[in-house]
């Protein structure tokens, strides 16, 4: 929403500067994106270099067929020689001139130049060059009134400031200059002008044939008819305002509808009445297979979900979105039907979305426009039709369903203060609400103005109205607490431990997308209409994403790659997937690299784990283990260059030891020994260890430190060397006792695995 300050100040009297207005609106009303300086810069006397000029002589440039050589009186002793590229004027024309040194709206500084051998000391300006419109086909020819040398600013609105606002969807009333003026008046206490617009004299009282078939989608249709309309271009002030407001001037009639919409919010549309079959307006749903060519030249296929404005035969506009080409106002138009209607937001939104069409009008209707404003907009537009196009108002019809009533809400002023945490005096609350045009009764029954009726329906909504005007006065406090204690839940603490252990091991934490191109799980949840094929499936495993992240780092030449991620996975389970938190890791190096990381993580939580041979589609079948918590293994060769290993554990499943008790490991030192067993190749070290522990409770540690294969153990066998510790919690073991325990292990492993003690 763009609000030219010159327009705004027409509706509200305030001494506040543009910057002050912007700053306060930003706090109390809506976001202010920026302040735009529109038109000619008003500093360093720049405006004084723009003058009214009269062309005293004009002819072809002697050295250039496409240029005119002019002598222009700009109120100086001698006329100036100016070279001009336009031909839409001649001797005697009154024009806008910029003198050398002037800075044009685009920032360009005008210099005295020589063009094809002729000097040019100034520039005759087009309206586009002055940002007064979009016409650049010729220069701007002025009315003959003003004397040469008159400052141009006295004749044209050369310079303005524009507020660019970002309003919230609950405040369609702010999509109007008058609505912003109402806020400014409330904020600064300035006087708000009456709603602009005065009806012209009504020449006749002809009926206008308006029928509404769908009062839900169109609760009101006010049609006015005009004759003797003379279509022309709009005067400079109107073009300047529309241009500053971000709209393109088209013709006096169309500009008048846009001006009234921008002033008062309610969109309007003008039809060439002679193009309407039987001069009739029917507001109805489109029929199957109906189509319409809209103003933008496109042929649009309609459905019965679309609301249209039709004449006696066919659609002439898509209601609230865009008019039709056939009934468009053209230069030949003399009879106009002005539509000032009201449309329900949801239907407009759906049609606009389905048709892929958005317009200034649909953007407003979608937010829900006050149906009572239609008549105000019609009044202002009618006044402009009469003033700008000499139109005669000859008929009116106002068809309406039941229009919403104004809510009345009981406000408790004490609750306002309580909710804001700021004592706001009752008088002040009343003043604020009344300045926003709420009617406040003596009993604090507050009646909401029509343009806020959708948004303000409860007392808390009124509290917000008061609060937004006092936001900067609200102090900074903290809740006065009754109870509650801040602490992480055990699983949240554990997660941090895992993160810290892995970063301590040199792993980098990564974040990879939880939506992936594909997933090994056949029933993984798919997004029916993904945004991109890369992000189409909710993953059930982190490993493929980690491999991708590792590959990316390899590709860019990084070294020492060790990555981990903690994230949700989504396991198919009916409608809602089961979400689990997983930790996954990938590291350059063979199986023991990843397994070492897993062991360290588990050790941090004193978590027991056993490892069994496992299989996984991404992992080496001989170098993969499953644990009760997940998987660890070496990646299949070829997935990434070199040897890589990876793991993925279910964080929620980890059984952390909590509150374990002290064990005396100091008073009675252990007996340490090295033992080596020769076993068949398929026997796992873990199996030997588990069996030994089961046999001898005093066995505290049994850690493999070497594996040997070769002549001394023979084919098909291997030797595993262990570091063994025996310890009793009650006394120091004698050498003899230790030897006995050792023998028990030797016997047990021999019996179970055919293990032979070596050396």
């Amino acid at each position, binding site marked *: 929403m763009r609000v030219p300050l010159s327009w705004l100040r027409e509706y509200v009297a305030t001494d506040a500067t543009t910057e002050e207005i912007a700053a306060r609106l930003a706090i*109390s*009303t809506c*976001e202010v994106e920026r302040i735009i300086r529109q038109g000619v810069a008003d500093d360093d006397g720049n405006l004084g270099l723009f003058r009214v000029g009269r062309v005293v002589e004009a002819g072809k440039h002697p050295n250039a067929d496409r240029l005119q050589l002019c002598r222009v009186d700009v109120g100086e002793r001698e006329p100036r020689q100016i070279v001009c590229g336009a031909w839409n004027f001649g001797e005697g024309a009154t024009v806008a001139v910029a003198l050398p040194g002037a800075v044009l709206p685009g920032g360009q500084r005008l210099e005295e130049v020589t063009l094809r051998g002729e000097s040019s000391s100034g520039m005759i300006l087009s309206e586009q060059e002055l940002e007064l419109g979009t016409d650049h086909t010729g220069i701007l020819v002025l009315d003959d009134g003003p004397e040469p040398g008159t400052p141009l600013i006295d004749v044209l609105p050369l310079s303005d400031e524009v507020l660019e606002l970002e309003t919230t*969807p609950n*405040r369609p009333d702010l999509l109007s200059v008058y609505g912003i003026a109402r806020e400014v008046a409330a904020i600064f206490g300035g006087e708000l002008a009456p709603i602009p617009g005065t009806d012209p004299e009504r020449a006749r009282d002809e009926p206008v044939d308006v029928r509404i078939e769908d009062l839900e989608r169109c609760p009101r249709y006010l049609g006015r008819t005009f004759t003797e309309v003379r279509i022309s271009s709009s005067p400079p002030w109107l073009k300047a305002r529309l241009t500053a407001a971000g709209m393109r001037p088209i013709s006096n009639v169309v500009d008048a509808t846009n001006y009234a919409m921008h002033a008062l919010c309610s969109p309007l549309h003008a039809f060439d009445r002679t193009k309407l079959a039987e001069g009739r307006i029917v507001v109805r749903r489109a029929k199957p297979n109906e189509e319409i060519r809209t103003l933008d030249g496109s042929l649009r296929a309609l459905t019965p979900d679309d609301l249209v404005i039709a004449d006696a035969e066919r659609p002439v506009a898509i209601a609230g979105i865009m008019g039709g080409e056939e009934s468009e106002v053209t230069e030949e138009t003399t009879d106009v039907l002005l539509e000032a209607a009201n449309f329900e937001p949801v239907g407009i*939104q759906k049609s606009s*979305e389905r048709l892929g069409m958005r317009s200034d009008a649909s953007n407003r209707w979608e937010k829900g426009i006050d149906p009572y404003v239609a008549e105000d907009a019609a009044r202002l537009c009618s006044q402009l039709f009469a003033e700008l196009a000499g139109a005669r108002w000859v008929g009116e019809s106002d068809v309406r369903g039941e229009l919403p009533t104004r809510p009345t809400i009981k406000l408790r002023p004490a609750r306002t203060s*309580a*909710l*804001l*945490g700021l004592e706001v005096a009752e008088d002040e609350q009343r003043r604020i609400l009344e300045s926003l045009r709420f009617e406040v009764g003596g009993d604090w029954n507050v009646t909401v103005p029509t343009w806020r009726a959708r948004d303000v329906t*409860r007392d*808390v*909504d009124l509290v*917000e109205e008061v*609060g*937004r005007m006092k*936001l900067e006065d*609200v*102090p*900074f*406090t*903290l*809740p*006065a*607490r*009754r*109870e*509650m*204690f*801040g*602490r992480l*839940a055990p*699983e949240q603490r554990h997660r941090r431990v895992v*993160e810290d252990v892995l*970063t*301590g*091991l*040199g792993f*980098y*934490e*990564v*974040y*990879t997308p*939880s*939506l992936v191109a594909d997933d090994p799980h056949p029933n993984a949840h798919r*997004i*029916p*209409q993904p*945004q991109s094929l890369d*992000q189409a499936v*909710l993953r059930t495993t982190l490993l493929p994403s980690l491999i991708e*992240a590792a590959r990316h*780092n390899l590709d*860019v030449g*990084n070294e020492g*790659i060790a990555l981990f991620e903690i994230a949700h996975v*989504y396991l198919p389970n009916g*409608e*809602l997937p089961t979400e689990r938190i997983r930790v996954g890791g990938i590291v350059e190096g063979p199986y023991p690299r990843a397994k070492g990381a897993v062991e360290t993580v588990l050790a941090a939580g004193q978590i027991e784990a056993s490892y069994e041979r496992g299989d996984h589609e991404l992992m080496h079948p001989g170098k993969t283990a499953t644990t009760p918590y997940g998987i660890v293994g070496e990646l299949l060769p070829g997935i990434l260059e070199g040897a890589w290993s990876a793991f993925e554990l279910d964080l929620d499943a980890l059984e952390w030891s909590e509150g374990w008790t002290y064990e005396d490991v100091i008073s009675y030192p252990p007996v340490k020994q090295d033992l080596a067993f020769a076993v068949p190749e398929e026997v796992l070290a873990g199996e030997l260890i588990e069996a030994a522990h089961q046999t001898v409770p005093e066995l505290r540690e049994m850690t493999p430190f070497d594996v040997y294969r070769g002549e001394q153990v023979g084919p098909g066998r291997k030797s595993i060397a262990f570091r063994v510790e025996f310890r009793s919690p009650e006394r120091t073991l004698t050498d003899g006792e230790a030897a006995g325990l050792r023998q028990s292990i030797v016997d047990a492993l021999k019996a179970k695995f055919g293990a032979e003690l070596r050396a």
Partner: protein
Amino acid sequence: LDAEAYRQEALAAVEATSNAGELDEARVRYLGRKSELKQALREVRDRETGMALNAAREAIEQALAARQTDLERTELDRALTEETVDITLPGDAQPRGHLHLITQIRREVEDIFLGMGYEVVEGREVETSRYLFDALNMPPNHPTRSPLHTFYLNGDVVLRTETSPAQVHTMEEREPPIYMVSLGRCYRRDTPDPTHYPIFHQVEGLVVDDNITLADLKGTLQHLLRSLFGEERETRFATHYFPFTEPSIEAYVSCFLCDGAGCRVCKQSGWIEIGGAGMVDPNVFDFVGYDPEKVTGFAFGWGLERMGLLRHGLPDIRALWENDLRLLEQF
């Protein structure tokens, strides 16, 4: 033997030694088994001579010990001087990993709120529209409900567009008071660009208690913003609109780059928009069965990526998902 002359000769000899070998020679010569002193001691007959000889022996032993200490110290000094290394050469490489920037911010935010006595609540990412939209007072035609903005899995199963459903679950499960934050992934159909990615992280905060005020919300958010962006920062709050809060506000922090003067980061305004907040809408309380006449509350939901990008001057949000070690190791 003249004990005194012997003593003086020995002490002079000891003093004259310049290394451990010479010292050993002196020891053998003056105190060894064949030394004049030892021989004299063996032959001593009277007590007086014995005492004199023993005194000389003790003096020589002390001198030898003292000289030995001196020589060792000298030797050590020499060795230390010779063993100098280039102390600017790098130390042995130690593995050092890094937490992702988002995790670091997540922890900071968690710790700020833990310090104020809040709990951290986990939430699911796949939700039903009941918890994502209905409970949050989103009207049926609210644009966020459109499949153009939200990922639908099927029917009314959606990927959460904000962390707010965690609030609703918490309120459904227990009675006030509630002081909670919830942090996690959210999803929106945004086309990736420097400030958007379809997956992002939010921190959601909710307080419900007796007499919670807008002032409490301002104070809490100011504490959060100053903790994250610097104690000297100023904050500003502007009116806004969200279906689930009333009144609603948007929080701004004074630009930490230009300190409010206007620069590229704050788009010349001096203020940086951080995110939305407000007093919990009575309709949300109605949904979970709380009485809005008895309790009030506030809520906010802010993007973690945005905080990270702003605070560290990172120009492109997509870099956070590329996981290049060269970027990760900067944090």
